[in-house]
């Protein structure tokens, strides 16, 4: 269960984030064009943890390659500017489709796991080697 270890910076297992990040980033872009660091801020504020640039930009590149995102460099204040990402029409449709699928998926997983929320399992000491 090592991959379920959490830290204050990254509250969720990386395996879970890998599956959810794409649809979450596309959902952020549904609100309008924005840039990479602002996306990480939105995700962190929502409780998803700090997504690193090394994870985010390759994902955005794949979304661009799929035709779901367009990019545009906009000038910054005294700096080199920022790369803004905007959903294409196909990207908006794909975001809706993935959100629907994700809801179905999480409903299924919760139908399986929610019973375990009722009470923490009590430790049965039937295994004679358990205390060794």
């Amino acid at each position, binding site marked *: 269960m090592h991959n379920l270890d959490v830290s204050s910076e990254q509250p969720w297992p990386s395996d879970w984030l890998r599956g959810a990040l794409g649809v979450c980033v596309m959902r952020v872009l549904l609100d309008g064009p924005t840039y990479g*660091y602002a996306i990480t801020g939105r995700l962190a504020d929502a409780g998803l943890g700090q997504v690193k*640039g090394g994870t985010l930009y390759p994902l955005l*590149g794949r979304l661009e390659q799929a035709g779901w995102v367009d990019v545009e460099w906009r000038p910054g204040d005294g700096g080199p500017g920022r790369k803004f990402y905007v959903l294409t029409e196909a990207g908006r449709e794909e975001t809706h489709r993935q959100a629907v699928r994700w809801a179905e998926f999480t409903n299924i997983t919760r139908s399986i796991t929610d019973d375990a929320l009722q009470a923490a399992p009590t430790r049965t000491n039937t295994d004679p080697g358990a205390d060794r």
Partner: protein
Amino acid sequence: MNDVSRPSPRMTAGYLRSLAPSVDPAWTESFVVEQRLLGVSGPDIGDALATVESHVRDSGETAVAAFGDPVAYARDVAGTQARVPDLGLTPSFILAAVCGLVGISLCREPSPPGWRGPWLTSQSVTSGWRSSLPC
């Protein structure tokens, strides 16, 4: 006048720092070298480096903290970047080039007396070739 004894400004620490002033030059150099080795086009390398610079400047993180190892990151982003066309010499390319050279050399040789090719006479080829030479 160009001073040919001077090294190219490309890949020097000062040049790389000017491309991404907020990024550790060693990280930048490793990233650029790996992208070059992967055949990523120059404009796409510049775009990726500008993205790193922008993110590092906004977040206040180091490039290593935000993007990790530069070689690994260069490989990650290369999957969605344009590549420089491969100009390697394939066997079919070499065969076509040899056939072309043989064809040119045959055209330069005068044809045997009385031989008339299907398309050109020996005189017309010779006069055409000679007319291109300086007197």
